[in-house]
């Protein structure tokens, strides 16, 4: 049987969580913003070397002043993707706060942070020092663009690799 891994998308609202999933699962992108209410699950099979796994991707609604992410959704997740909108610095602070909260639910699940919207280079709002600070926290950062597809496969790949590595660790 093909193994299933639960992956959650978290981050502030409108950072591109749904768009990254749409790019990864269906290779599509839309400029139109339709905010996610609650949760929606998508699936994609990936191959890592010999191994095949089904990623069960939970696209959650974003965190903002109107609604907050329920950490219970993260329960049972093997890993998660933290999404930051590179054109809005405040989404980085939101990501840090969220990650802190999520860590309490699933303590050592691996995660990858996507610095999304790299195609909008002239509006880029994150300074090197700020990114260095995230590195310092041990975050694994990857520039992505749901629009052009840049970094999207890599982000999920990297996360899958880490999830499988962690599994292997816990078996020994």
């Amino acid at each position, binding site marked *: 049987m093909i193994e299933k891994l639960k992956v959650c998308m978290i981050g502030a609202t409108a950072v591109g969580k749904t768009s990254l999933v749409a790019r990864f699962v269906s290779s599509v992108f839309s400029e139109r913003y339709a905010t996610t209410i*609650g949760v929606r699950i998508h699936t994609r099979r990936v191959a890592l070397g010999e191994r095949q796994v089904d990623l069960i991707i939970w696209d959650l609604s974003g965190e*903002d002043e109107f609604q907050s992410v329920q950490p219970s959704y993260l329960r049972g997740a093997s890993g998660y993707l933290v999404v930051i909108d590179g054109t809005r610095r405040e989404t980085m602070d939101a990501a840090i706060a969220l990650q802190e909260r999520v860590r309490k639910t699933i303590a050592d699940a691996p995660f990858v942070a996507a610095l999304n919207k790299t195609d909008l280079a002239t509006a880029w709002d994150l*300074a090197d020092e700020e990114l260095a600070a995230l590195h310092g926290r041990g975050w694994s950062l990857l520039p992505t663009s749901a629009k052009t597809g840049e970094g999207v496969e890599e982000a999920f790949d990297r996360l899958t690799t880490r999830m499988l590595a962690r599994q292997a660790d816990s078996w020994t």
Partner: protein
Amino acid sequence: MDMSAVMAVLERLVLERLPDGRFVRRGTLPAWCRRLGRPALRAPIPVVIGELFPCLDPFMEAAEVVWRGEAGARVSSGFWTDTDTDGAELHLEALAVRVDGAEVLVVAHDERLFREQQRLLQRARELRLAHDALLREMEHKDVLLHTIVHELAAPLHTILGMLSLLDEAPRHASGVQAIDSALAAAREQKQVIGEVLEAFSAEHAPPAVALADAPDLRLVLDRVVRERQAVAAERNIRLELAPGAPLHHVVAEHDRLVRVLSNLVDNALCRSPTGGTVRLTVRREGAWAYVVIDDQGPPVPLERLSRLFGTLALRRDAAVAYGGLGLFFCRIAVERWGGGIGYEPSEHGGARFWVRLQGKDGDHDDRS
């Protein structure tokens, strides 16, 4: 009256939890369940909730609290989105309640309520985004203003300095030199004022460029490179224009194009290490002409780019570090001509700026 039929008409699916933790359907199957295509629902046999509705798995802990608690208490899962067999979206919400000692899960399909909630949140979030964007824009305008004042003040200081020099030694030989310097500074200041005015008017109405005046890119580049050779030599940098670029008339204003390209070359010369090379290449792509300027200075980090060209993410520390308004004006000018300007790391490890200009109609196909 059959209450379970009422529930079905209200699009509610009623599940009861068994002692082993599985659920069994009670009452009539609502129509939307058929669309969902879960065969397990058809017959009233026990099912695992995570197989029926995976989104409800994390909700079970909160539901458990209600089921163990007092009668009448209830908790909602909030909406989740499922897809029916045709791929259409179904918006569902579950309610956990305790009824007569039974542990009940009511799954409701309520598109109207979902749309309402979606519309409200969508609107609120869009407004928040627009508000934040506006704040950012205001901050950038502040910085822009600050930079403009700075740029205007610099030549003024020169003028004042020269004037007081003249005042002290009016008949001295250095007077002529002082007047020249003051004049040059005044012209510089006039130019900055002109650029500022134009940049702001450009934001509102980009003027049409007369095609008849489309400058010859090759001649412009020759001139820019010739004029900058002295500076390059002083810094021991090789400045070269790659041969073989086809003759090309482009949509632009001549003098301004000279300034844009000079500005980019100046930057490249500043950034390049002594002994390095700054190389200009012209490339054609369909109706476009690309001028590419490669230097051997350090690559520009992504976050700097916005500061280079934008008012968009211009921050207080940026204007000074990147030579004021130069690139900002370059961008405004080039975009007015329908072109573009940008940066990418060079294959050879240096920095590469490019300008994309529209070929004048009828002139761009003579080679390809």
